[in-house]
């Protein structure tokens, strides 16, 4: 009886102390992680809109500004590919045409599904509206599921803005 109490309290103590460590590490890194995510977004915005200098969150998309003037939207979206969640950033201008599509993260099969990151695929979206994307952007041979997921994600985001 005494031993079980001793063991339990030692284990409890270890967990409490480590829990404190963990929560302080979380609080310590949280602002930096959020800053990273935001920086990543602004960097992507600048790649999509050359003159972009600010990004403001609105509902579940972001408005992109250049010299205080609204020049378009970016939307972060994700969809389930073949083996992972594909995260995309889509730039859309005020006329709801696509300015560009960037892949934020994906873990599709390297060499096959990862072709969705190729410029030759992503450039097909540029300048197209919703109907044109549905009609003219083809999936990649051999990577149908991954590329279909990316196309669907783009179509859904175009509807949401």
């Amino acid at each position, binding site marked *: 009886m005494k*031993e079980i109490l*001793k*063991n339990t309290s*030692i*284990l409890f103590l*270890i*967990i409490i102390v*480590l*829990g404190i*460590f*963990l929560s302080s*590490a*979380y609080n310590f*890194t949280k602002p*930096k*992680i959020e800053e*990273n995510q935001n920086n*990543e977004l602004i960097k992507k915005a600048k790649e999509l809109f050359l003159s972009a200098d600010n990004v403001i969150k609105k509902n579940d998309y972001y408005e992109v500004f250049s010299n205080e003037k609204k020049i378009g939207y970016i939307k972060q979206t994700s969809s389930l590919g073949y083996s*992972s969640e594909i995260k995309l950033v889509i730039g859309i201008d005020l006329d709801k045409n696509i300015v560009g599509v960037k892949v934020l*993260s994906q*873990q599709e*099969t*390297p*060499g*096959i599904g990862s072709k969705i990151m190729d410029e030759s695929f992503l450039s097909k979206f540029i300048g197209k509206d919703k109907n044109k994307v549905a009609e003219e952007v083809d999936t990649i041979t051999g990577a149908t599921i991954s590329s279909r997921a990316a196309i669907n994600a783009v179509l859904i985001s175009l509807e949401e803005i």
Partner: protein
Amino acid sequence: MSIVKDGILKKNPVFFMLLGLCPALAVTTSIENAIGMGIATTFVLVASGIIISILRNFISEKIRIPAFIVIIATMVTIISLFMEAYIPLLYSQLGIYVPLIVVNCIVFARALSFAYKNKIIPSVVDGLSNGVGFTLALFVIGSIREIIGTGKIDFYGIVINLHLPAIGIFIFPSGALLIMGLVLALKKHIWGEM
């Protein structure tokens, strides 16, 4: 000295003990992933080694397993938080495999068989040398797979195109098993039965 030699060469966790094969097969699709995973695991090995060797007199045999799991899981989570904050590029590449260091049996094996029985300094040395050994093993498999599988080397933006034909299968898990088997066979051929 013998600890270092054991960890890196004589008892290399991957090639001689055949431990930690899951990450060794899963993340070795490229050299940069292999090295990133190796470094992250080394940190966990050292950090958990320090804590376990400090606490080893308080943790009785009966609760050592849950205690070690909690310690290792905490270290892994802290390291993955810091990675996400300061090396986001590596974090996004390793993705799911970072939390999986918790169940990497090398970390657990070193905790049970070394850190639990030794003082802090030897435990740090042991963790470090096993980590280096693990990194080395991942680097060997990763570089072979990247070179044969993609025909080029891409190390943090430095691309060396070797103009070799890319044999896609070596990027897949089945290719990892093939390379692993070949490396083990080669090892046995050179050094014989250990």
